[in-house]
């Protein structure tokens, strides 16, 4: 009898509690990420690109309070901003280039028409 009474309550509690556990992109992105891959869209061979890609592969990005800082070897090498509107994250470089960000607990991808950068939590 007691169980019969408690079961709907437990279901209701679970429904209320689990959505609360799901983190939004704003919370998910706010940490330090390490670049794990940089891919260009198409086959591009360029020595400058290779050098920049190698620099990126050693970089870390820290997102906090709508700003990001990129560091490499402990030195700040880039900074910019990010915004979250309707769960859509946009990362903007200091030159104003927008990158569409898709963030999960395990991966952050920054997408532009020319290249895509993948990061994982540090």
């Amino acid at each position, binding site marked *: 009898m007691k169980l019969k009474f408690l079961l709907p309550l437990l279901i209701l509690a679970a429904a209320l509690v689990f959505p609360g556990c799901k983190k939004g992109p704003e919370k998910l992105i706010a940490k330090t990420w390490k670049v794990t891959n*940089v891919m*260009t869209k*198409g086959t*591009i*061979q*360029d020595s*400058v*690109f290779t050098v*920049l*890609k190698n*620099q*990126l592969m050693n*970089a870390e990005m820290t997102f906090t309070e709508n700003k990001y800082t*990129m560091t490499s070897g402990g030195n700040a*090498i*880039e*900074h*910019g901003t990010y915004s979250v509107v309707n769960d859509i994250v946009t990362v903007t*470089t*200091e*030159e104003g*280039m927008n*990158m569409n960000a898709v963030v999960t607990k395990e991966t952050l991808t*920054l997408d*532009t028409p*020319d*290249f895509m*950068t993948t990061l994982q939590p540090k």
Partner: protein
Amino acid sequence: MGLFDKLSKAVTTAKEKTDYNTLVTASGIKATDLKYSMSTDGILTVSGIVADGATREAIVAALKKAEGVKEVKSLLEAEDLTEKRIMMKVVTRSSNLNIRKGPGTEFDIVGKAAHHSNVQLLKKTYPKWYLIKSENGIEGYCSTDYLAQV
């Protein structure tokens, strides 16, 4: 400029390489395997082998029209025609033809090609100056005004 911005610029620059070839082809120039390198300050370097000096000048003129190009640095070389054994006739009025160290009258004379003799064409280096080899083995530049195809 940050790394992402530099990367974006590098990718765009690389993409433009295709456009440079398109630009050259659209200008009616037949040239293959040209290589391009764009510096961050807008200096486009082009290298490769072309048929002659006129083609080289046409390529440079075409590339100067490309967006973002401030200057074109040409490392283009005229095709080596030595193996083709193309002969040309010296068509001066009566005198011998000066063979010079470089492509212009300001360069020293290194020898002479006899009037009405044949010289071997080595490279069509410049529209007005060809690299030749005389019958007695002197190599240098001669004005195309005094050379005719055999």
